[in-house]
């Protein structure tokens, strides 16, 4: 219990986010997490011995900031929580390809199109790293795919909003990927080794995504009046849904305390949301765009910005399936999966035929 409390203090917060704007920024924090992972491995620890109290051993490893690996004993609830979280994270990457994929054929230049293609390909890659991490916990890829297609597992609610203009591609990079990075950088220090390692890889690639989005918005915001208006309209529509990406307020968050104790989660939803708002203010100024919140102002006492909370009733509705694009996203995913069936069948049949031939000639 004391662990949960200490995680909520400002002191702990400072450990992962050194300084107001550390040199190297978020990428520097990812590298620090990677170094911490190596250092923890260097400290060494024998595996559990026959006859050891496995639960005590698990707690010891977690408390020492070392990593739990796939074949270690772990509490069933820890395994289930991780499968749920990693799978939903993977599904989000896969569904997240759709809103941006929508603009690949209409990107304003060949350069922007090539960049956007690379970015969407990265999202597919991130989904695959994460599915692989989830599989180390004893669930199969087929089960994971079914959980998404049958609607039994969710993906991030943000992808149920439409991309109406080219500026939305920029805003997704800046705000949506920015919020995702704030959420994900602490996951690089997650107690489960395969997840932590996947997140280090993902975060390094995400920082390209955030910067390309910011550059698109910066270009629009410094273009014609119509382009600037398009950028502002886009930020207006995405700001609150991006704040909602951090989940319900701490008081209503169901999974938090246990995940904190297990070091799956390192910071509360509200702490991360605050961190994100504080980061965005200066970035919006440099863009010359306004964050659509009349209550947004610096609070000297808290050394943080006061801001308006997102509409959590809307978040609940979107999670329940009533967002603007929920049905479209799922239909598209199911169709793509079904239409790819013949490719998977052909590849499997070809592999089987070749294996048979090799048996004959051997």
């Amino acid at each position: 219990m004391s662990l949960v409390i200490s995680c909520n203090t400002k002191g702990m917060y400072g450990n992962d986010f050194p300084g107001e704007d550390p040199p190297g920024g978020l990428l520097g924090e990812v590298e620090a997490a990677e170094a911490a992972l190596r250092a923890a491995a260097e400290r060494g620890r024998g595996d559990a011995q026959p006859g050891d109290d496995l639960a005590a051993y698990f707690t010891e490893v977690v408390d020492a900031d070392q990593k739990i690996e796939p074949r270690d004993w772990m509490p069933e609830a820890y395994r289930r929580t991780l499968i749920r979280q990693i799978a939903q994270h993977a599904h989000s990457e896969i569904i997240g390809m759709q809103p941006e994929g929508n603009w690949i054929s209409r990107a304003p230049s060949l350069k922007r199109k090539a960049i956007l293609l690379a970015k969407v390909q990265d999202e597919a890659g991130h989904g695959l790293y994460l599915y692989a991490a989830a599989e180390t916990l004893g669930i199969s890829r087929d089960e994971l795919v079914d959980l998404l297609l049958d609607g039994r597992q969710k993906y991030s609610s943000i992808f149920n909003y439409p991309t109406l203009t080219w500026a939305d591609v920029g805003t997704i990079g800046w705000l949506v990927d920015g919020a995702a990075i704030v959420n994900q950088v602490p996951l690089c220090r997650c107690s489960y080794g395969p997840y932590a390692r996947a997140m280090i890889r993902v975060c390094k690639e995400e920082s390209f995504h955030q910067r390309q989005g910011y550059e698109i918005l910066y270009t629009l915001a410094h273009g014609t009046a119509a382009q600037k208006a398009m950028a502002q309209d886009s930020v207006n529509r995405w700001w609150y849904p991006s704040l909602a990406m951090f989940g319900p307020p701490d008081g209503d968050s169901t999974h938090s305390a246990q995940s904190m104790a297990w070091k799956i989660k390192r910071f509360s939803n509200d702490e991360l949301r605050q961190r994100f708002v504080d980061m965005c203010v200066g970035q919006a100024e440099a863009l010359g765009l306004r964050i659509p919140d009349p209550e947004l102002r610096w609070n000297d006492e808290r050394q943080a910005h006061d801001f308006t909370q997102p509409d959590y009733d809307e978040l609940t509705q979107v999670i329940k399936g009533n967002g603007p694009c929920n049905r479209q996203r799922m239909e598209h995913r199911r169709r793509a999966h079904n239409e790819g069936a013949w490719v998977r069948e052909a590849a499997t049949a070809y592999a089987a035929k070749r294996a048979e031939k090799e048996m004959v000639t051997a």
Partner: protein
Amino acid sequence: MNQQHTPLWEVFVRARRGLAHTHVGSLHAPDAELALRNARDLYTRRQEGVSIWVVPASAITASSPDEKDAFFDPAADKVYRHPTFYEVPDGVAHL
């Protein structure tokens, strides 16, 4: 819903000439050739490697954590395998 479980492959990448292949992750593919191509697209999009190995996960034999005791014990009492075990008299160089 059509589902076919394709085999799992472990992927090893040599980052640069002079370094050993290192395990980077895993993927699913029906055969070795597709596993190699998928590995290239998944793990070397940013020139992370100059060479890739893919190995069927089912072909890997692993030592099990609960055998740790017996399996790695022989190394535990042989400190004399490390150069630091030996005392070097003062003034002796190039040793």
